[in-house]
């Protein structure tokens, strides 16, 4: 169990697909927990926090400030404050990569590009939240259509010598297009590379709206897909860094904001 001086704070990020909790003490991650969100944001927050507390070997009574973020933030019980995931991802990414200038967060059903300001604040942002195209949900649907595990998509695309162009903008129509490509005998890896390229194109458009500022950092669950990361880096023409545990960055940012609040209030963490 990590020792801490009692300034233990938590950030809880409840998204559409998963809920994460990160415990921070003295600016360092002490423990974390991840659960599927399921049908209840409130329960997801509770379960994620319980996992993190168990990992740290502490109880809820040892916690100070708790900040909730993510789509389900309003449902998290016990949060002292809610902060949007834009601000939290900016803060978390900056903590891990202090010279980060742009954060790309692709989550379960939306994607964001965040321009960082001073000290990890979000100076500007663009969101794509009107449809699931280009998000984690998009990749889930495509993985099912291709009958490959989601976690293999990155490795598959690396084997492709070319990317099959995917023209559909909509997840449903893209799925139909994928099925057609499979029927035409296009290799699965080329289709996957094409899907990653489609996501990269969408992200490129969003980055262009803000203007590219490097270094670029990618966060969120989709950042675990090295194929998507590579495709985005290729399209942007620059490196894209992925911190360890990219799916935890939102919760980490929330925890760091909780620590800031605790320090500002003079409260014992």
């Amino acid at each position, binding site marked *: 169990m990590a020792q801490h001086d009692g300034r233990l704070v938590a950030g809880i990020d409840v998204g559409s697909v998963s809920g994460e909790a990160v415990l921070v003490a003295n600016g360092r991650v002490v423990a974390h927990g991840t659960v599927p969100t399921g049908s209840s944001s409130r329960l997801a927050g509770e379960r994620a926090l319980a996992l993190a507390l168990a990992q740290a070997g502490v109880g809820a009574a040892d916690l100070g400030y708790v900040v909730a973020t993510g*789509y389900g933030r309003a449902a998290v019980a016990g949060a002292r404050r809610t*902060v*949007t*995931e*834009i*601000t939290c991802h900016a803060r978390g990414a900056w903590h891990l990569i202090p010279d980060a200038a742009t954060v790309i967060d692709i989550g379960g059903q*939306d994607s964001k590009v965040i321009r960082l*300001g001073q000290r990890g*604040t*979000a*100076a*500007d*942002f663009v*969101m794509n*939240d*009107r449809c699931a195209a280009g998000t984690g949900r998009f990749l889930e649907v495509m993985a099912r259509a291709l009958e490959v595990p989601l976690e293999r998509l990155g490795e598959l695309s690396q084997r492709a010598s070319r990317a099959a162009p995917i023209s559909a903008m909509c997840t449903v129509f893209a799925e139909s297009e994928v099925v057609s490509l499979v029927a035409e005998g296009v290799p699965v890896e080329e289709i996957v590379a094409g899907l990653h390229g489609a996501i990269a194109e969408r992200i490129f458009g969003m980055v262009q709206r803000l203007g590219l500022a490097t270094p670029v950092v990618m966060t969120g669950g989709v950042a675990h897909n090295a194929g998507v990361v590579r495709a985005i880096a290729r399209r942007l023409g620059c490196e894209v860094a992925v911190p360890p545990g990219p799916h935890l960055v939102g919760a980490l940012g929330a925890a760091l904001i909780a620590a800031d609040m605790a320090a500002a209030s003079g409260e014992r963490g």
Partner: protein
Amino acid sequence: MAFLDALRGALLANPRLGLVAPALQVELLRLRLDRSYAWRSQRLLQETAVRLGLRAYRGREPVVFTSIMVPPELLYALGLVPFGVEVAGAVTSMLGLASQCLAAAERAWAPADSCSVLRAALGGAELGLLPRPLAAVCTSCPCDSTAKVYAHVARQAGPAPLLLLDVPYEQSPDAVAYLAEQLAAATATLAELAGRKLEPARLAEAVRLSNEARRHVLAVMAQRRARPGLLASSDALGFVYPWSLFLGSPAGVAVFRSYAEELAEAPARPAPEGPRLMWLHFMPFYAHELVAALEGAGAAVVCEEMTQLYWDEADPAQPFVGLARRCISHFLNVPTEERIERLLAVARDYQVDGAVHFSHHGCRQSQGALRVMRDGLAAAGVPLMEVEGDLIDPRGRGEGQHRTRLEAFVETLA
């Protein structure tokens, strides 16, 4: 109150029965009993609007369909009743009739990506919800589909002739003269259709009343500048209705005089502490949480582009020139660079920290310049956040997404 709401709904449930007038009577009764209004002037505005609607639906006076920028002074001078078709579109949403009207518009092949305000009005015409007009008058700006929709609506609800006013996209004496000539011609045509003679004295009086209302609007704006947050933006945006339909009538003077007096009497209140925001375009006409999301995050919407007075007093001796000048100087009829300068002036007056633009689906005239406006405002230190949505149709709105976007925007301002 719930009973009256239900009764009104029942009367409107089958538009073919032609029970809009009784529904408006019920609404008038409901307004008299409603004690929930924050401002008595707000209730006066609503009552005045309902009475004007009743005049339109009773069928005893000639009705003219008008678009937002058509000067109602011309109609009042002839004793005609203005009926705002876009306003009707907005009202369908307030009354929960939007989905019916939009479905009717869809059956009439109205493109789904066109403005739902006009589509709802078109659907209302298809359902027989609109009064029978003597004529329809519309301007070529600001909305790109106004002329075609008004032509359709005039045919459905009439048939009635459409008079189209071509508003030049330039601020010059020639442009004013060009439009003034059209206003004069349109007025002459309406007089002929109504079998009436235009009396210059009546038109001069309408312009005089319009000028008087304008002075009261200036007083309202002064109060709002001095005390940001005094009048809720959602209430202030209702001014667009009397501007388009009451100016030139004693009722127009009464409404704005009431607001000016009531705001001046209002007790002092603390200035907003958090970020101050300017709202661009309208807010949805159905119940929404956009402002609540901003206020929950600690911000206050203190002013709106739509409610900034943009015209000078007209000379009653030269009514068509003054009214033409008003049309042409609308902020949606000027180059974007000028629009940005006007917005920055408002931002300075209200000490605004940021702006929110509601990008209404299909509203190309407001969204087309968004990037230029964003850059222009940002360069002057006023960041702009865009929120996409539909003013009329609440279906498919992503409240969670809107809330995240707006809260995150406020967080960037803090």
